[in-house]
């Protein structure tokens, strides 16, 4: 049985447990129909030209895990931002883990998608927001059909959340191969502020495929600062589908740090629905071996007087493959748009590949749009400068990589997270210098 067929029959089994009269049931049914029709995307589709899911669809994945999952804090503590106090939503093999989590209902909701779906008091929010910004492509639809668990975060108007919220999805490897589909809904009320860190972490070398969907709604004047840390095992793959809906005067920032995993596809979509929105999409990608990371971004400028800033830096070693496909659409009414996109790549070894494709579709006539894309190697003059000061070749390269990635790193607003990422980078490029990278 193909994985697609397996999923379709799992859905029929799932339906028995579903809320039949809820409007959500129709949403699910529509979604599974879309998936059934379209199936998994193939390289024939323009948006998937450089990334093939074929090898990922071969293992016999468990869609639900019924096995015992015991995760001890001491073994996973390092994956949390433990230097500071945070709210935590922790899922193990797709199931909520209350022991590792720290939720709240005190003036804001940091809790579970499963309770939001089942309890009547959340019904208005679910009806107003669930699946309202997510696209109906096959992978998002697949997630929608199976929506069961994930983060539910609702920040009421004018609330400035005092500490970051961490969303962490662990997989234990109890199943030979695991398919996970977390579904997150984040609603940030008027003038509310929130910082969120998301991480997917496999705890074994068994295969994991995650198809995650996150919907974020920023009501007017809201501020959302979101960090994705992708530093997973070489047997873990991730398809991340994130949709951000921005009302007027909002600031939304997403930083993606792609250092690990087997195959990662980031579908990051911003929709600017009101005036004076500010969107930031930044990323650092450092790959080696046969890793493959595909950043597929969309900034849809619908309203006038908005800005968007994209800055993606990539370093590709050995036979790793990077893809950057950045699309900016400026609608006819989106006058005075200021859209900027930058994508710089360094190929460290001859076998590494980068496919970079900026796409600008501009229908308004009074806009400022610019993009720059570079693919290069290390600057020999810069290397010579560092080496002439007594710094070895490897360390000199590391310093240059760090300098190269710095424009992305400097806008990380959580100092402890920045230190963490510095360490991950130093680790990734295999150096230890006299100061903390």
């Amino acid at each position: 049985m193909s994985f697609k067929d397996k999923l379709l029959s799992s859905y029929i089994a799932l339906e028995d447990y579903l809320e039949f009269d809820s409007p959500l049931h129709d949403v699910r049914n529509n979604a599974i129909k879309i998936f059934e029709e379209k199936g998994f995307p193939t390289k024939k589709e323009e948006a998937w030209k450089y990334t093939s899911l074929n090898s990922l669809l071969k293992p016999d994945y468990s869609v639900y895990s019924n096995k015992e999952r015991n995760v001890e804090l001491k073994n996973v503590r390092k994956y949390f931002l433990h230097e500071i106090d945070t709210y935590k939503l922790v899922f193990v093999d797709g199931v909520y883990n209350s022991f590792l989590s720290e939720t709240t209902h005190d003036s804001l909701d940091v809790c579970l998608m499963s309770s939001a779906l089942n309890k009547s008091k959340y019904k208005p929010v679910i009806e107003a927001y669930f699946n309202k910004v997510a696209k109906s492509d096959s992978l998002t639809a697949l997630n929608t059909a199976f929506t069961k668990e994930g983060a539910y975060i609702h920040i009421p108007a004018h609330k400035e959340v005092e500490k970051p919220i961490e969303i962490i999805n662990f997989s234990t490897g109890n199943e030979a191969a695991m398919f996970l589909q977390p579904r997150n809904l984040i609603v940030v009320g008027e003038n509310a502020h929130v910082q969120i860190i998301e991480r997917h972490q496999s705890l074994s070398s068994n295969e994991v495929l995650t198809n995650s969907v996150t919907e974020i709604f920023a009501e007017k004047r809201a501020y959302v600062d979101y960090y994705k840390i992708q530093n997973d095992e070489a047997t873990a793959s991730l398809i991340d589908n994130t949709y951000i809906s921005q009302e007027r005067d909002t600031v939304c920032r997403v930083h993606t740090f792609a250092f690990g995993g087997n195959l990662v596809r980031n579908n990051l979509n911003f929709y600017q629905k009101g005036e004076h929105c500010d969107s930031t999409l930044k990323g650092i990608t450092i790959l080696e071996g046969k890793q493959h990371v595909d950043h597929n971004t969309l900034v849809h400028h619908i309203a006038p007087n908005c800005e968007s800033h994209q800055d993606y830096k990539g370093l590709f070693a050995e036979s790793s493959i990077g893809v950057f496909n950045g699309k900016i659409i400026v609608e006819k009414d989106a006058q005075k748009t200021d859209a900027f996109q930058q994508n710089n790549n360094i190929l460290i070894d001859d076998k590494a590949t980068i496919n970079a494709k900026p796409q600008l579709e501009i229908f308004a006539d009074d806009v400022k749009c610019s993009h720059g894309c570079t693919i290069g190697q290390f600057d020999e003059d810069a290397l010579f400068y560092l080496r002439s000061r007594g710094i070895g070749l490897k360390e000199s390269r590391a310093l240059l990589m760090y300098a190269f990635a710095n424009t992305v790193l400097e806008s990380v607003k959580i100092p402890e997270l920045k230190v963490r990422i510095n360490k991950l980078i130093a680790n990734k490029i295999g150096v230890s210098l006299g100061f903390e990278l």
Partner: protein
Amino acid sequence: MLKIKDLYAGLEGKDILQGINLEVKAGEVHAIMGPNGSGKSTLASVVAGKEEYEVSRGYITFENQDISELDPEERAHKGIFLSFQYPVEIPGVSVTNFIKTAINETRKAKGKEDMPASEMLKMIKEKADMLEIDRKFLSRSLNEGFSGGEKKRNEIFQMAMLEPKLAILDETDSGLDIDALKVVANGVNKLKSKDNAVLVITHYQRLLDYIVPDFVHVLMNGKIVKSGTKELAYELEEKGYDWIKEELV
């Protein structure tokens, strides 16, 4: 200390240096002057070990050891320092962190422990004061957004911290106003001792008023065509380089 013997070197099989002979002894200051394109910066880069240059003939020894095949960092560990004409910007790495790394990497190469933090701080403070460098400057990203003068001052600061045996100053005077020039020259003079040497590469005589050379060499078309004392520098300032060309003919 430094001996260059019949050195031919260049890029892509084309020699820019065409038979250089030069000896610099401890305690001496040498100046290399010459018109644009004469090979001055090439000479500096070749001595410091820039890899894209190929030595096709001759050799370079430093303290009686052939260094022609050494990596730039290995030459630095032996005590060769090059002050760059165009220092490179390294965003995100502060001047302090950079110099700490350079010093400790050099110590590591010599099998020594890292310099204790307190000693490092004391040294940084002392050398920064000597070069009239503001403390805030030290926490800025290396060379990023620095003015021409700041870059050169920073080069000399690195030199002061690394305490090289041979310092090569490549066009250190370019981009400096007279006050900055004095501060930089003053720094170099304070670091001067009977055990180290300085090789000043310059187009103009101006810097040599402040860093007084024992010997002046004129480089033309990749060769040292004339050597003399500091008076030669004045003569060049006054008459330009054409008379030497005529003399050669």
